[in-house]
Every structure is written in C-alpha cells, then in structure tokens.
C-alpha cells in the first residue's frame, strides 16, 4: 500500500511537469497546426538558465529555499519566453504562408540548433543542481512519508496551469487567444491583431516549459543538454493523449501519463518505463485518435 502511494504521488509530480511542457505543444498546435519540435529544448534551456542564474546571483543560502526556487523559476521563465518569442519571429513567422511541412522542418532545425547550442555552452556532461535549495524533509500522510519537494513541485505546476486556464477563459486577451485558435480570419475581423496573439502564445508556452525545466533540475538534481528530447517526447505524448490543441486535455494527459509510467515502472519493470508510456500513445492513436478530451474538433483551445 505504501509503495502504491509513493508511486502514485511520484507519478503525479512528474506528470504535472509533463503537463506543463505539454501545454506549450498544445497551444502552438491549436493556433498554427504546427508541432514546435524545439519546445523540448526550450525546456532544457530553462533548466540550464536556472542553474546559471543561481550562480550569477549567488542566491543559494541568501534567502529561504522556497524563495530561491521561486525566483529561479520566474527569471528563467522570463528569459526563455523571450527566446520563444524570437524563435517564432525568426524561424516560424517567415514561413507562415508556406507549406506546413516547411515549418515542421524549420522546427526540427530549431530543435537541433538549441540542443547543440546548449551542449556547446554548457558541455555534454550532465550538470548537478545543488541539492538542499528546497527542503529535503518529508511529510507524513496516513503514515506514508512523502518528500516535501514532490508536493511543492506538484503544487507549483498545478498553480501555473490554473493561472493559465484562468487567463485563457476569464480575460479579454484570453478570449482573443481562443478566437484565433478557432478562426484566424474571423479573429482579424474582430479587430484582433493575430500576429500579437501568436507572439503571446510563443511567450507563454516556452515560459511554462522553462518553469518545468527548473523544477526538474530541483527535483532530480541533475540536468543534461539532451534531456529535452525524452521529456519533450513524453509531454508531446501527453498532449496527444489529452487531445492535441486542448488545454485541459494537456493537463489531464500529463498527469495520467506520469501516473501510468510510475506505476508501470514499479509493478512491471523500470526498464519498460518508456515502452509503457509509448504503448499508451499507440493505443490512444488506434482507439481514440482525437485524444481523451479531443472530441470537440473545432474547439482547439
């Protein structure tokens, strides 16, 4: 029973990170029908920038560990959001009216560019996030010890997702984002500047990915230049699982994938962890190609 509870909470925490990254894929897809392959690498960039910022401002030990973690996340989000904005302006916008495949190739190129740039700047070996920034204590739930860090990560990711959901559904700019996702031409007729809305989505998505990157660094204590590939692939799977283009779908898909993966690793075999995750993807594509929440095809956000 304790093992199950441990795996369940671990799965939820990792799944929340998947969900956070998946939002970036799903929002961009909902808007442009483009899979932003560079998104996983922006997540990695977020993790590395968090490390650099930690050293640059010598934050460690200066203030409360939670404040340090929060500050790293916010700063890294801001910087990566800016990179995401530039990525769209340089690599995607000039190709907006060309064949969709052309933009996909550009996205693949951007992904390779970012992962190699990170490798050249930081080295190919994995880097260590200093432990002990966040409290390493555990909290007892019904006699089961859950690491506090796991709970913090889950709460942090969920809070960001709820904030995004609120923004999309309760603000004027949020409804402009939904309008552009449904029909760009009609959105223009409402007086919405479609280019600005697309830029905004490329600020938000990579920003959320960067938050995930810093969280992964803090949680696992180790980052590598190519970790965006596996996390990106999982998050992409989560986005499809929930129904690509659908924001609540990405959240649900991420959490579900995290739990399935954790339970599979615990009860089947850790070596089969990735295989189980991708088996889920294949089954979803066969039996429910629109994803779990994807039945409303026109409702892309």
């Amino acid at each position, binding site marked *: 029973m304790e093992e199950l509870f441990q795996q369940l909470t671990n799965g939820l925490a990792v799944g929340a990170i998947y969900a956070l990254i998946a939002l970036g894929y799903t929002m961009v897809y909902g808007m442009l029908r483009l899979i932003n392959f560079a998104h996983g690498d922006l997540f990695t960039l977020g993790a590395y920038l968090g490390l650099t910022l930690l050293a640059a401002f010598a934050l460690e030990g200066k203030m409360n560990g939670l404040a340090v973690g929060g500050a790293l996340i916010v700063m890294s989000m801001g910087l990566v959001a800016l990179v995401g904005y530039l990525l769209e302006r340089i690599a995607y916008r000039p190709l907006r009216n060309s064949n969709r495949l052309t933009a996909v190739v550009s996205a693949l190129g951007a992904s390779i560019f970012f992962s190699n740039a990170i490798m050249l700047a930081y080295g190919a070996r994995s880097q260590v996030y200093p432990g002990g920034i966040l409290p390493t204590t555990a909290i007892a739930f019904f006699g089961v010890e859950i690491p506090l860090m796991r709970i913090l990560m889950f709460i942090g990711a969920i809070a960001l997702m709820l904030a995004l959901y609120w923004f999309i559904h309760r603000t*004027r700019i949020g*409804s*402009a984002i*939904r*309008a552009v996702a*449904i*029909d760009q*031409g*009609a*959105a*223009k*007729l*409402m*007086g*919405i*500047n*479609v280019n600005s809305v697309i830029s905004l989505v490329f600020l938000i998505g990579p920003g959320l990915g960067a938050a995930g990157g810093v969280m992964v660094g803090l949680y696992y204590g180790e980052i590598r230049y190519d970790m965006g590939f596996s996390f990106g692939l999982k998050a992409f799977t989560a986005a499809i699982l929930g129904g690509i283009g659908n924001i609540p779908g990405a959240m649900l898909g991420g959490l579900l994938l995290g739990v399935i993966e954790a339970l599979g690793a615990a009860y089947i075999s850790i070596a089969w962890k990735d295989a189980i995750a991708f088996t889920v993807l294949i089954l979803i594509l066969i039996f429910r190609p629109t994803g779990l929440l994807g039945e*409303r095809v*026109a*409702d892309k956000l």
Partner: protein
Amino acid sequence: MGAAFLELRDLRVSYGRVEALHGVSLRIEQGEIVAILGANGAGKTTTMAAVSGLIKPAGGGIFFDGRPLHTLHSHEVVRLGITLAPEGRRLFGTLTVLENMELGAFTLKDKRRAATIRDWIFELFPRLAERVEQLAGTLSGGEQQMLAIGRALMGDPKVLLLDEPSLGLAPIPARSIFASVREINRQGVTVLLVEQNARAALKIASRGYVMEVGKVVMEDRADALLANTDIQSAYLGRSKTS
C-alpha cells in the same frame, strides 16, 4: 466631386497571377445603404475582403473619410470603425452567443458604450437575448445571421459591411434580417450590402452597383435599378418578354 465617406478608387486585386478585380470604383456616402449586386464570381466578396483589409489590393486605393485604408491591417480597419459580417457568418461556433458578442467588442475600450450597444442589439434581435449562454454553432441559420450582424455591430462601426446576409435562409427569417438592416441604418450606421437576393437588397438600399467579372458595369439609384429591364431579367428573375 468631393471626397466620399467610403470610396474605392480603381481597385485591383489579384489572387496569384489571376486578377479578380479589374479596377473597381465605388462611392458610399454617410448614412446610405448601398447594395452591390452580381452573379457568383463577380468579385463582390473580394471587394468586401479588400475593404476590411483581409486581402491587400494590387492597385488603386480605398479611402475612408479621406484616409487610406488599403495600407492598413484588418485589425486597424476595425479600429477605424468599419466591421464586416462575412459571407458564411464565420461565427466562433464553440463559444457562446455572449462570448461571440464580447469578441465583437474587442476594440471597444468604453465598457459602458459596449453595454449600450449590446442592449440595443438584444432589442433588435430578442432571440439572441434568449440564447446568450447557447453555443453559437447550435443556433438556427437565421439566429446565426443575427449573431453575425450583432457581433459586427458590437465594434460600434460607422460602416457595416454585410456579405450575403440572407444566404441559406428561409424567406421569413431573410425578410426579418432585411428589416433589421434598415433599422440599423436608421440608427446612423452606413451599410454596404452584398446580396444575391437583389430585389430585397434594392428595396432597402438607396443606390446600387452591379458587378460582372471583376468590374462595375452599372450604377444607379435603387428604384431605377429595380425598374431596369436588363436588371430585372438578369438578377430579379423576371424575363424580358413577360
């Protein structure tokens, strides 16, 4: 000739190498309802798309109150006070009636003004008021057209562009739409109307233009066009001999 309220001067539009409009000139005075008639492919919808900034002209110009429109993006045209209820309505089908109308007021900073316009639209189309929480995609054809017009009015336009408002509607809802257009015009909104139902359009319009394959071939007062035998046989479904 002084400057018109809205004027198209020798407007040319091309899709790739194919020129769709070969120099179209129109003048619309403030407070008018002007109808554009013509067969499919005459360039009526293209003209509307060019005025609203959705497509960039290859030559000529569009002027609103003396200001050039053809250099602006569509969202800037809306801000100047020209909104389009497009052909096929283009509603946000998975959003509610109210959300659609709120998007129509996207450029309107003054919330009180937006509320006033909304109340007016609900007076004009009481059916919309009853269905504020309903998804736009689940409305009937007539209600969808009401919403498309209402959404375009929410931007507080000086000029309302209507592209085929009666398309696909049964006679009774179509008639009520035309009555509403006349009422909207009475409230001071200038209307440019593209219609395949030429008779109904000319009955509410003050003037009309007839387009054929990307050109204006005739312009006259609406009553004169209604009485014109060529127009009757071509667009009003009455043969010359009868």
